[in-house]
């Protein structure tokens, strides 16, 4: 039986549920999740959590724009980008669970870890800010993540490689979207120029962290599983400069940074975000919804 629309499907009987809830089928069901023999499963799991946490927290911030975007088309765009990232999160969390050889799956990683166990870069957790902040953050994030995922396509872990290859196609659209807005606003009115510039200036102190490797990333880069974050910088700078020039803006100065987020050291913004994201699952820990 198929349904004419999602609402019928939601209210129909059966196992089919949609993009929210807990207890979904393993998104890697049927995929060979054997860890290659000379790859460290614990490191691979930690790395997949890093990339998954980046996507989950960024997705949550994008979802906060639902009912807050400047127009309907933009709201749909941001929700779609958030959904792509949520999908990447699920695959990466599933990969982490299999690689760590624990029974843990996506629900555990998303809903039952505390802030210091999250390994996302801090840039994604910053409070929502205004539309200029959003576009600056989305451009920085998508440009960095696209460069990263593309370098993971030849990863020695075939599951991570497949997740990356799918993600590249999606994040290329995210980067396009943010770049077009950055140019429109930067090269727009005095007010839009000022707010786009302020957005980049506020985000920039956390840009250095994106290119600073954690020990897990260093080890996995040596074994051909991960990509060296420092190696993404040239592509990132070239794309940002292309956009900023067209937007009549300048690249702010870098601030040296440790990989604090990757080590679980976060800004004050992550705790409240997780409190909201995890509230239903923690209030009803045995429930499937």
């Amino acid at each position: 039986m198929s349904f004419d629309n999602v609402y019928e499907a939601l209210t129909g009987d059966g196992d089919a549920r949609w993009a929210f809830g807990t207890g979904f089928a393993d998104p890697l069901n049927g995929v060979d999740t054997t860890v290659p023999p000379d790859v460290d499963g614990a490191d691979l799991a930690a790395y997949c959590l890093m990339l998954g946490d980046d996507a989950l927290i960024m997705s949550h911030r994008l979802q906060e724009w639902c009912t807050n975007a400047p127009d309907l088309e933009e709201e749909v765009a941001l929700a779609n980008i958030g959904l792509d990232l949520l999908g990447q999160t699920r695959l990466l969390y599933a990969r982490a669970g299999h690689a760590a050889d624990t029974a843990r799956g996506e629900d555990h990683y998303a809903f039952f870890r505390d802030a210091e166990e999250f390994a996302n870069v801090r840039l994604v957790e910053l409070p929502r800010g205004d539309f200029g902040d959003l576009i600056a953050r989305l451009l920085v994030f998508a440009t960095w993540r696209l460069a990263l995922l593309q370098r993971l396509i030849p990863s020695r872990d075939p599951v991570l490689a497949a997740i990356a290859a799918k993600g590249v196609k999606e994040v290329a659209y995210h980067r396009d979207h943010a770049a077009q807005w950055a140019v429109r606003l930067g090269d727009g009115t005095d007010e839009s120029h000022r707010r786009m510039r302020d957005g980049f200036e506020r985000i920039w102190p956390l840009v250095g962290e994106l290119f600073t490797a954690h020990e897990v990333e260093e080890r996995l880069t040596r074994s051909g599983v991960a990509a060296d974050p420092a190696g993404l910088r040239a592509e990132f700078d070239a794309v940002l400069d292309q956009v900023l020039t067209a937007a009549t803006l300048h690249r702010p100065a870098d601030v040296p940074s440790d990989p604090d987020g990757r080590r679980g050291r976060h800004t004050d913004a992550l705790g409240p975000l997780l409190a909201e994201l995890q509230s239903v699952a923690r209030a009803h820990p045995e429930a499937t919804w």
Partner: protein
Amino acid sequence: MVTVTTDARAVAETVTDPELPMLTLADLGVLRDVSEEDGRVVVTITPTYSGCPAMDAMRADLIRALRAAGYDEVDVRTTLHPPWTTDWISAEGRRRLAEAGIAPPGAAPRRAEGPIPLALGPTVRTIRCPHCGSADTEETSAFGPTACRALRRCRSCREPFEHVKEI
């Protein structure tokens, strides 16, 4: 047992996409394989986008259709590689999309080695209006009601329409 597999494939090929019900999963290129192992039917599907929320619904629809045809043991598996591309939508699928007022995709972008270039100018693609056939159409948003659809508008007949964007 070859006949069983062939029949199971024929049944699986009738199942439609939950969000694009004018298309079968086979026409969409999501249905990758149907085989039989140890008396069970094994169906392999691939997500269009990583976050496609319809995967669970597709799985349930496939199991339901195959059970109704007498196949009690059905295992629906996922594959991620190679990643889905709009190039896999069949000619029949493209015809049905257009018939439903959704412009089918052009050829998916070919990625050369090295960094993916960023194009800042307007993307020029000849996407014909599914209502009047005019090529004078413009994109209003790259993101639409589902992950795979963009919004466009026809400058000739002024109708808005959706377009399955190339990926």
